[in-house]
């Protein structure tokens, strides 16, 4: 009964190919058990992760987002993660001013050797999003035309 009614968060993880994707791979090969509520999308670099992609994920029904890549100074392309970091600082401030819940986007650095950190990160994010519940506010706005809801 509990299992049926409990809310299972949908999480999209945008990760870089060189560090976090390999790190998540290590989590698997190390046979660590962790939450399965997330879908990984692999990118060449965190610098490639456009802020619009995060908004698209929310619009398509994601309740939470993980964005992860190489630690500073470890970028495969030398500076992609530095550029990404600036973009996130700016973007997060703007989202907050818009009233979009920034707690639903989890940013992190996970290296290829940190399989354990990846498992912990996913587990804690899933727990946090479960606490916050489904992101209904955004989904309502996103589905406005499909459902032909009246906007008073």
């Amino acid at each position, binding site marked *: 009964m509990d299992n049926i009614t409990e809310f299972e968060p949908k999480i999209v993880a945008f990760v870089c190919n060189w560090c976090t994707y390999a790190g998540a791979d290590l989590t698997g090969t190390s046979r660590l058990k962790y939450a399965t509520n997330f879908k990984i999308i692999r990118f060449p670099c965190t610098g490639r992760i456009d*802020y*619009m992609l995060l*908004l698209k994920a929310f*619009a398509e029904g994601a309740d939470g987002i993980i964005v992860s890549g190489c630690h*500073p*100074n470890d970028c495969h392309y030398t*500076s992609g993660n*530095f*550029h990404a*970091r*600036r*973009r*996130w*600082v*700016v*973007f*997060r*401030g*703007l*989202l*907050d*001013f*818009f*009233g*979009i*819940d*920034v707690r639903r986007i*989890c*940013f*992190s*650095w996970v290296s290829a050797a940190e399989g354990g950190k990846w498992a912990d*990160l996913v587990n804690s994010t899933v727990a946090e999003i479960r606490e916050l519940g489904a992101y209904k*506010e955004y989904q309502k*706005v*996103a589905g*406005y*035309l499909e459902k032909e809801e009246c*906007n008073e």
Partner: protein
Amino acid sequence: MNKLIEKATSLLQEGVVTKVIGYEEGTEKPRPFFCEKAEDTSKLIYNSRCINNLAVYLTKPELLGTGKVAVVATLPTLRSIVQLAFENQLKEDKLVILTVTDSEEVIEFAGFAEIETYLKDFKLKIDQKEQDLIDKLEGMSKEERWTFWVEELSQCFKCYACRAACPMCYCTRCVVEVNCPQWVQPWASPLGNIEWQINRAMHLAGRCTGCGSCAEACPVGIPIDLLTRKMMEDLGEEFGVVPGQPNKNGNVLSTFKPEDKENFIR
């Protein structure tokens, strides 16, 4: 006032410029005026009601032609010109930039560097009404802010007047016109409107000079300039950007420092 007309007349008569971009009296308020003949210069006006940012025309070669062009610039226009020059969008030798001081003297700038020196005496001030609204929004809870923006933006019908009025929106192909991939829904919808404004604000991050033309141009009066204004404040704290001035260290989003600080990356 008359000095401006004198100056414009002599510039046109001597053939220094092919046109003077300034203001003329419109039906309700002053409107931009492209003065191409010396006899039309008497229509030129300049006062505090002239609020259009004329810098928006300076990135449109089809309007300027190949000759030299003079522009009557207000303070916000001068700020935009400096930013555009910093982004290598203007040709110094093709422009004559004029401004009118409070004592109605006409200044002709010798170059972009001189404008910057002139602007040092005029700090960008945020309107008290706008600052109050920003403060009010910051005092709200997340949910209230979200409701505020969803309601405000529900009036938007995607006329893109905000884009047309902004001197910094000079891309020949805008992200909203790209349909492969379709980043933003082309029709007016709550989601598309929000995504469009987020895009606009992100693209103006650290570039906006705070002229307020976007909000002024909005036919339904959405306070969209708050987004870039608020961002200007934040960027100042984070990256030492001085509002209204170009960031000499490079554009905020296309440069970085290894020692950039953040407190949210795990």
